[in-house]
């Protein structure tokens, strides 16, 4: 009883402490740095979506860190689960007594999976124009694979292809960052996308190397999350 009262008091205190932020939400003027990003992003980098100009370019190094964190997490999950299952081979679904997926799920997954992959690719290719980008597109691709895995438990993934895609896109991401460092002139920095022409605002082929970088991030995130789901699924069996 005492514990519950203390818990409620703590929650009430937290709500009271956070109330000013909630009350002023959407009212506060953007700060100096945010104003600079909002005003200079489209002109300097040619991105219609300001969030992307920050994520890929102004804060590109943080994004590289995020990708690294995700890679480490995937490697950890894969390593732990792979060691555990090396003792026994995979059992067939029928031997485990698993029931087959319903006809509705199978048909819907056959229809939806390719469309979802296409949507994911659209999201990360248009990261500099519309909301979303590499991370969101990659997750949507992983969701497409997930639907396929749910509908057909026997389905296996081409692990070699996935590892190749993940490794190559990660390498190309860092290589492009280094290219930005060397070929953009005096003010260049790591991951500067301006070594390609900026083009016209709002076109697909614009914003320098941002579409390429975000596509690589999308492929890498998609391959990694698919790998996590596949490892979890095989371990759950």
């Amino acid at each position: 009883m005492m514990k519950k009262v203390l818990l409620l008091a703590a929650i009430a205190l937290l709500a009271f402490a956070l109330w000013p932020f909630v009350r002023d939400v959407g009212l506060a003027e953007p700060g100096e740095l945010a104003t600079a990003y909002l005003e200079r992003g489209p002109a300097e980098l040619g991105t219609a979506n300001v969030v992307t100009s920050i994520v890929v370019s102004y804060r590109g190094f943080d994004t590289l860190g995020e990708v690294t964190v995700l890679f480490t997490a995937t490697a950890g999950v894969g390593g732990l689960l792979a060691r555990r299952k090396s003792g026994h081979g995979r059992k067939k679904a029928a031997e485990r007594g698993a029931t087959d997926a319903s006809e509705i799920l199978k048909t819907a997954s056959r229809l939806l999976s390719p469309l979802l992959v296409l949507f994911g690719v659209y999201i990360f290719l248009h990261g500099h124009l519309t909301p979303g980008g590499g991370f969101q597109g990659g997750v949507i691709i992983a969701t497409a694979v997930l639907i396929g895995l749910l509908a057909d438990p026997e389905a296996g993934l081409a692990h070699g292809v996935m590892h190749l895609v993940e490794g190559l896109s990660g390498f190309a991401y860092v290589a492009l960052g280094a290219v930005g460092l060397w070929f953009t002139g005096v003010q260049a920095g790591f991951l500067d996308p301006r070594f390609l022409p900026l083009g016209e605002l709002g076109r697909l082929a614009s914003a320098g190397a941002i579409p390429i970088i975000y596509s690589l991030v999308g492929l890498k995130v998609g391959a990694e999350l698919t790998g996590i789901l596949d490892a979890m699924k095989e371990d759950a069996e």
Partner: protein
Amino acid sequence: MLDGRTTLDLVIGFLGLLMILAALWSVLSKRLLSSVLLSGAVSLLASLVFLALGAPDVAMTEAAIGSALTTMVFLYSLSRMKVEQDAHEDGGAS
């Protein structure tokens, strides 16, 4: 007549209330499966709040990762726990 600001406040307040209810239900629920699904629902409602506040990028991430992928990872872990529990019970009975 409601102006835009009041409408936004009402929408966010309603979604926030639903989020709190879903979160409480998820914590208090006795079944792990409902807890997992309800925590996914909290993420889905949070993504709606982000959308109402004009942050579609964050909303997409929250909807895809919070409500789809995390829920699936939890569900796979749940089924793995069940398998181990069954194996344990079988071993104990024989």
